[in-house]
């Protein structure tokens, strides 16, 4: 475990820097590499280049890193709450809640830029509903709640199909066209959620032992559960509002984190955060590099939503999780 952790500590900064640079140097519009360097050192005279690098590419990679970290930490917390490593932020139905709120506002007040607050509010409200109705089994309730919310979303879309292309972003998750404003809205959540989650770590270590044992060890399980769920939902809500309901990052990052760092939440939370950030950002790099030319479709399709990429990465990881579970 120790050597793995040290390798992680040494390698992740390298990987992170490499990823950020890749994002800054690559992209759909052509910016010559020397120009990117000049932009980064503040010596670029061509405003279009500066705009592309600083206002398009930089926010995109930052939002990807931040949302990935939040999803991963939220995943760790949700897995702890339901005491099952197969849970992820989507288990709580918050993604479906965000999508419903976004569609609802687009149908009711078309033309207003309410998507961000709507996604955030919808996700948080769903978390609150889950806390109230889901005490018996958060996993089953969350999944059913998600199904109902998705059906309501579809109901709205059948009535008014105008928002359909917008809502696809929230349904699968996409980092296309992120702006500096998105990053401005995201980073305060990082600053609040990540440290709070880490401060909860030793309580989570006790909570996962089960309600009787946790009470026996002096943990006040009611308040702890409420706070953990709140932090988990807040993290997922912020990430979803910024990047859409990207699947599997919240499942894969904690899983790999456990392999590398073990089950202690004091280590698992930071490790998963880093892994989630790298994972989402890497998947985004793949997503916008992919250019698909399919038979039967005339247009060249480039820029797959990042959620589709994470879904493809997620399936084999889920399978490996499964194998480990069954061996145990």
């Amino acid at each position: 475990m120790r050597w793995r952790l040290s390798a992680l500590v040494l390698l992740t900064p390298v990987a992170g820097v490499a990823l950020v640079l890749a994002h800054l140097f690559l992209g759909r519009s052509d910016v010559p590499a020397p120009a990117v360097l000049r932009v980064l050192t503040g010596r670029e005279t061509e405003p279009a280049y500066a705009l592309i690098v600083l206002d398009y590419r930089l926010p995109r990679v930052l939002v990807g890193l931040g949302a990935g970290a939040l999803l991963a930490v939220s995943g760790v917390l949700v897995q702890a709450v339901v005491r099952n490593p197969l849970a992820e932020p989507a288990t709580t139905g918050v993604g479906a809640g965000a999508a419903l709120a976004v569609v609802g506002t687009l149908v009711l007040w078309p033309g207003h830029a309410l998507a961000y607050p709507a996604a955030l509010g919808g996700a948080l409200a769903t978390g609150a509903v889950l806390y109230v109705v889901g005490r018996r089994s958060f996993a089953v309730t969350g999944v059913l709640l998600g199904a109902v919310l998705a059906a309501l979303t579809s109901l709205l879309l059948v009535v008014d199909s105008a928002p359909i292309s917008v809502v696809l972003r929230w349904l699968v998750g996409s980092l296309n066209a992120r702006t500096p404003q998105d990053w401005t809205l995201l980073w305060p959540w990082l600053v609040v959620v990540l440290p709070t989650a880490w401060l909860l770590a030793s309580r989570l270590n006790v909570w996962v032992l089960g309600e009787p044992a946790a009470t026996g060890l002096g943990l006040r399980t009611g308040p702890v559960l409420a706070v953990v769920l709140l932090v988990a939902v807040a993290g997922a809500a912020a990430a979803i509002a910024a990047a859409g309901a990207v699947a599997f990052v919240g499942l894969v990052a904690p899983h790999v984190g456990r392999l590398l760092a073990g089950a202690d939440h004091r280590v698992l939370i930071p490790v998963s955060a880093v892994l989630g950030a790298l994972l989402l950002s890497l998947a985004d790099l793949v997503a916008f590099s992919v250019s698909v030319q399919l038979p039967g479709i005339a247009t060249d399709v480039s820029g797959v939503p990042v959620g589709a990429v994470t879904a493809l990465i997620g399936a084999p990881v889920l399978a490996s999780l499964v194998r480990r579970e069954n061996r145990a």
Partner: protein
Amino acid sequence: MSTTEPPVLAARGLSAGHARRVVVADLTLEVRPRTVTALVGPNGSGKSTLLMTLARVLRRQAGEVLLDDRPIDRLPSTEVARRLGVLPQTAVVPTGATVRELVEQGRYPQLGPWAMLRRHDDGAMRRALELTGLTPLADRRLDSLSGGERQRAWIAMTLAQETGVLLLDEPTTYLDVRHQIDLMRLVEHLRDDHGLTVVMVLHDLNQAARHADRVVALRDGRVLADGTPREVLTSGTLRSVFDVDALVVDDPVTGRPLFVAR
């Protein structure tokens, strides 16, 4: 064992149960320090419910539980956890955790706000692992252990809490004969050499007779018999508590009562 000492743990007029179902009704019980008490009774008699309510894991419906003469639910939960350890019956296996990581959780009540382990915590964990014979398995993952080893790991976690009172719910479940005997000896050792008070739910009446100072027999949430093993484990009580026809003879090894079904 002295009867004049104040009880370390007591229930007064205690009613408890799950949801609206009353399992234990108006029960009074006092546990003296440095004694081993066994709770026995048929399935559904309320033994575990009583134990978990004494441990404030289940909320009581009426009456009160006193720890060192103070109502247990007025004490902060970590304060209780420093004096009283609980081994529940159904324990979750946390994903990927090792034995040492589980045992470490026993130190949770003692940790400061920054949750850093101190030297004394290391010592407590080492002793707990040694007492349960788990030192060689300390770095194994829990999900790779046998049921018995896992049960011992949970016992080690409870011991690492270093409390004066231990409440054990069917601690011998999953253990083979040797480890059952080891555990019972460990309980006696903790009482004799460390002055611990132990209350445990046992299914095996002979185990209770052999290792407990006091046996409390429950049926339908009421105490039917309470006293030394010799006083409680008689043919008459066994019939009224368990509906079994049994012969009670003297154990040739310990001289305690030994129960043989007829």
